[in-house]
């Protein structure tokens, strides 16, 4: 190759690189402004002093971080674990986990059903799955409240049928929260599961049965491992927003059963402790990140061992 040719090739390569950067720069700018910027503000705020009427005072303080888990005794200044905070953390994590499992248990058969319909009918069933998205989340959550409250549809029917004598207290319970969250997040589990199962080769089922697998073994040894990408995606899509859920626990938990989202909101509102709110937001982010890392590691562990 001649000297001239090589030079022009290098020029071309450099030109391409420059053009590639130019093309991604709007996206990078947006990321910087909309994601990294606010995150930086949150981190900075968590190390400032709370203003008396909200907002922050520009004075360094680790008070917010201490208050995430601990509380200071008013009289002797001693520190102890803040039980109320721990309860909220635990409730958020456990409810999110249970919601993820329940949406999977309900969503997998649903996704399988849709994926095994003739191609022309699948669009119709998927359309049904997406209908809840047409209505505002707030309205839907209030609708659930109407069904389960003391004078609601469910209690009225049960009372009328003579099954119960006094209305069942269903609102403001963990059960109500769970029902609401499973209802809201079910489509987010079904859709990625469907995407994974749609590509599933049904002939593999016959191969499994032919090779002496029972129905349970076909499910656990063939169907579930092959649809793993869909299970991972669905679980993340449900678990992450569940952890930060705000509207559902606000309405169905009635302010008594707070989750992390409500707790954070409280700090920026009535609590007037912006630094604590910021610190809690970061804690939420860290919990999500750790949960995702652990989850993805465990579920793809079999793979790594083999390779």
């Amino acid at each position, binding site marked *: 190759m001649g000297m001239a040719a090589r030079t022009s090739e290098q020029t071309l390569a450099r030109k391409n690189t420059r053009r590639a950067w130019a093309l991604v720069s709007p996206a990078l700018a947006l990321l910087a402004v909309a994601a990294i910027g606010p995150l930086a503000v949150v981190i900075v705020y968590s190390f400032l002093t709370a203003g008396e009427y909200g907002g922050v005072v520009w004075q360094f303080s680790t008070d917010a971080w201490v208050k995430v888990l601990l509380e200071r005794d008013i009289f002797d200044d001693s520190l102890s674990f803040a039980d109320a905070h721990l309860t909220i953390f635990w409730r958020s994590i456990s409810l999110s986990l249970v919601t993820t499992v329940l949406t999977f248990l309900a969503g997998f058969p649903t996704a399988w059903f849709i994926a095994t319909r003739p191609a022309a009918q699948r669009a119709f069933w998927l359309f049904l799955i997406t209908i809840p998205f047409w209505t505002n989340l707030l309205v839907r959550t209030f609708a659930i409240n109407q069904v389960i409250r003391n004078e609601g549809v469910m209690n009225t029917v049960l009372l009328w049928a003579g099954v119960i004598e006094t209305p069942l207290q269903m609102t403001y319970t963990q059960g109500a929260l769970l029902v609401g969250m499973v209802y809201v997040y079910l489509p987010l589990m079904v859709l990625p599961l469907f995407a994974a199962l749609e590509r599933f080769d049904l002939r593999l089922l016959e*191969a499994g*049965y032919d*090779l002496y697998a*029972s129905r349970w073994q076909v499910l656990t040894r063939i169907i579930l491992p092959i649809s793993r990408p869909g299970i991972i995606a669905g679980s993340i899509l449900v678990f992450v927003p569940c952890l930060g859920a705000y509207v559902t626990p606000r309405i169905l938990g009635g302010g008594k059963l707070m989750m992390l989202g409500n707790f954070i909101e409280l700090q920026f509102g009535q609590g007037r402790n912006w630094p604590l709110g910021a610190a809690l937001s970061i804690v939420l982010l860290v919990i999500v990140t750790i949960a995702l890392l652990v989850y993805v590691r465990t579920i793809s562990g079999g793979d790594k061992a083999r390779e």
Partner: protein
Amino acid sequence: MSQSYGISVRGVVKAFGQGPSAVRALDDVSVEIGGGEFFTLLGPSGCGKTTLLRLIAGFEMPTMGEIFLDGADISALPPSKRPVNTVFQSYALFPHLTVAENIGFGLKMQGKPRAEVAETVARMLALIQLEPMAARRVNQLSGGQQQRVALARALAPQPKVLLLDEPLSALDAKLRKEMQSELKRLQQETGITFVFVTHDQEEALTMSDRIAVMSAGHIEQIGTPREVYTKPVNRFVASFIGETNFLGGEWGTGGVKLSNGAMIAVDGKGSGAVTLAIRPEQVRLCASADAGAMPATVTELVYFGTDTHCHLALAGGARVTARLQSQASGDVAIGVGDHVHIRASAAQVLAD
């Protein structure tokens, strides 16, 4: 070596759909397959050959009739309870498992001890000569390698019968030839009964002990490759396997008299109109004085390498193709437009 079992299919009907719109994919099919036999179901697509295979595997249940394996009725057993394994047309290998895990899958599901599974998998890998690929994912293999893994996976649990659903159709011509002889070798080494489905008549002729030629849900003829080729019972079998000239004629004394007056000697006797099947390679050029000689005009010559196809028009308009072996020079002794004489060295009367 595992003992091989025979299969007996008795009066099997398989209908898809309900009521008047039901389609009979198999209509009263009966066949006896011997233990250790390489048995081929041959026919065009939609003839019911794959349905019959799926009934034997247990993926479908017969609408009527029974299927026996070594004398025991297996018609109602699910696939997982039949000592029968299948090599699927698309291979249907498990994409999430390695080559070795695929091969060991059946044994593992049977609950065989780990050591036995490992030992059998190693033996199977050696058999298909893919030992270096044991830890690979199946989608990292070529088509031919996947084919061999599918074969090993089906053979590993030592089935009494191996079912093969057009296993070579996805391979290119050269690889297919190799796999044909490899399959034949495996069948002879293991002594397992093979039931092989194909639409490729050449594949059926070269590999099978016996062939069942199927059409529209029926078995048209069962016989050795030689029998179905040289003694086809009807027009369908004669035309589906190899090329054939069909000539109309009438029974006369000592043979069949064609419409052009020529007499062709055939075995047996009868009366009335018949159809004769004459293979192109049985049509010979001859002298005008020979017995059964017919005048013909050469209309076209097509060179095929090993031989030359000579299209001829008989007096009276009937058309006949003769397959003449090519000379060393590549030429044939005749040209288009020549007037020649031909005779049939063998002919088969069809039941039609």
